[in-house]
């Protein structure tokens, strides 16, 4: 098993140490995660890749303090995560998860209201412009396209200026073109902000395109299969995904995923 033999130039931001999670479901225990460990450097973009139901969301929810681990621990800036750390972590969900009874601006104000903080309208406006959402402030979620909704959910998280973004298959429901567009936008925002991003996906191509490192998980219970360093230069372009090196990388990762007996991993 490959652990942190990777040369990360920056200091360690998140440390997952032997994370194990067993849910006590009504139908019996569900073993979601088993002794999963990974180190994530500050400012790093890490993709966690694995088949559906391999505990990726469990891992992310544990990292954001929404789930307690059965065994093991997670450190953020050296301090154990024992509950939500809303000022340091921004969680982005599958589907945009906007509140349908609030318009776009009210949705972006929601985290401020929860935290009882003054709404930083200037920051919201800047982010809206960066993501091409300016002018849609009074639109309700159902009036926005899927891509716009997901951009709004990213703005909602970024407006809090968290050091870490945890993203749970955020673009899984979008079509391929919108997904490319969103990935480029995300890389831009990341390059400008220097945030640490942990991005969960079951799409190999997407993982390679985005990440500094791709962490492959096995099917349930989710264990660490292997970590791949992605040598693709930055800034990245969609054209790179057609180069032989990129395709070879997809095949290499696919082999690891398959040897883990995984199903349901998309190769594009």
């Amino acid at each position: 098993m490959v652990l942190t033999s990777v040369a990360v130039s920056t200091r360690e931001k998140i440390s997952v140490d032997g994370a194990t999670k067993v849910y006590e479901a009504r139908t019996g225990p569900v073993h979601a995660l088993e002794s999963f460990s990974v180190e994530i450097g500050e400012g790093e973009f890490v993709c966690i890749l694995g088949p559906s139901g391999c505990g990726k969301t469990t891992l992310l929810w544990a990292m954001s303090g929404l789930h307690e681990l059965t065994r093991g621990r997670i450190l953020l800036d050296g301090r154990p995560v024992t509950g939500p750390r809303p000022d340091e972590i921004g969680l982005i969900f599958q589907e945009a998860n906007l509140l349908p009874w609030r318009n776009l601006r009210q949705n972006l104000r929601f985290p401020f209201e929860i935290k009882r903080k003054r709404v930083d309208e200037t920051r919201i406006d800047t982010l809206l412009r960066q993501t091409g959402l300016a002018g849609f402030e009074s639109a309700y979620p159902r009036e926005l396209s899927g891509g716009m909704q997901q951009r709004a959910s990213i703005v909602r998280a970024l407006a809090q200026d968290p050091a870490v973004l945890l993203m749970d298959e955020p673009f899984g429901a979008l079509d391929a073109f919108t997904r490319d567009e969103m990935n480029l936008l995300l890389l831009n925002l990341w390059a400008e902000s220097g945030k640490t991003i942990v991005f969960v996906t079951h799409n190999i191509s997407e993982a390679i395109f985005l990440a500094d490192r791709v962490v492959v998980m096995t099917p349930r219970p989710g264990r660490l299969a292997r970590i791949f360093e992605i040598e693709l230069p930055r800034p990245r372009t969609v054209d790179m995904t057609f180069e032989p090196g990129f395709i070879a990388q997809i095949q290499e990762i696919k082999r690891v995923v398959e040897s883990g007996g995984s199903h349901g991993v998309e190769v594009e």
Partner: protein
Amino acid sequence: MSNVPRELKDEIPSFEGAPARGDHGPIDWTALTSIRTARSAMEIGAIVALGAAVFFGLELILRWTDTPSYVFPKPVDVVKSLVSDFDDLYMHHLWVTMQEFLVGFAIGASIGLLLAALITQKPFAEKVIAPYVLIMVTTPMLALVPFLRLKLGFGAWPLIIAVALASGPMVMINAATGFRRTDLAKIALARSYGASTLQIFWKIRFPLALPMIIVGFMVGSIFGLLTAVGGEMVAASEAGGLGERLVYFSSLARMDQFGAVILIIATLGVSIYVLFYFIGKRWASWEA
């Protein structure tokens, strides 16, 4: 009588917002409100024309057949009575019924809403209470009025209590349906920003439940009005009320006045429906 609210109960829960869809529950009320476009004006015209046709058609038939007013009142006489005698014959009784209804509904709806919010937090409590709520919903509460009269005398309270008992459980079962809609992802979202349980309730659970709460208010208020009027017909207070007038006028065969009271009650019922319809459009239109 119990057929009417049951029909409403099945039809109302769609507050589907966009007028383009054309789905507005049993009646498209936008025809009455947005008079700006020519299309709506035509629809209003059709509605008025239908009403006029029934009104004057009935009048004509009754005149032709020379039907005496104690057999069937002529619409024109009913309206004449309603307009000229309103202050003398009806105003007081309308006010009596309104008081019973408003106070009873306010009490019933508050308790129903509160109980719904509380019991949905504990599935066990919900299961224990459910059969009793069902009994309360299915029992016509106006049957209790004579009994309450014996206990509480001839004031407004027996009817207020009956109205509260009729509307409260209706509000409660609908609101409970709303509060039971737990959206795990939205709760997780709020929690990830550090929300407290109270914040989760006010910022997630309550707005999520609001459309069903409004439906509960609508159905509950119609139940309450029926109970107030029906209760007055069974055992009114000394002050009277619209239901008491129905019994009084029909016993004297004063059918013009009887018809006028029916019109007042109908207007009251429709007004309540329209009020909650617009509250629903305003506060729950997000639910597509």
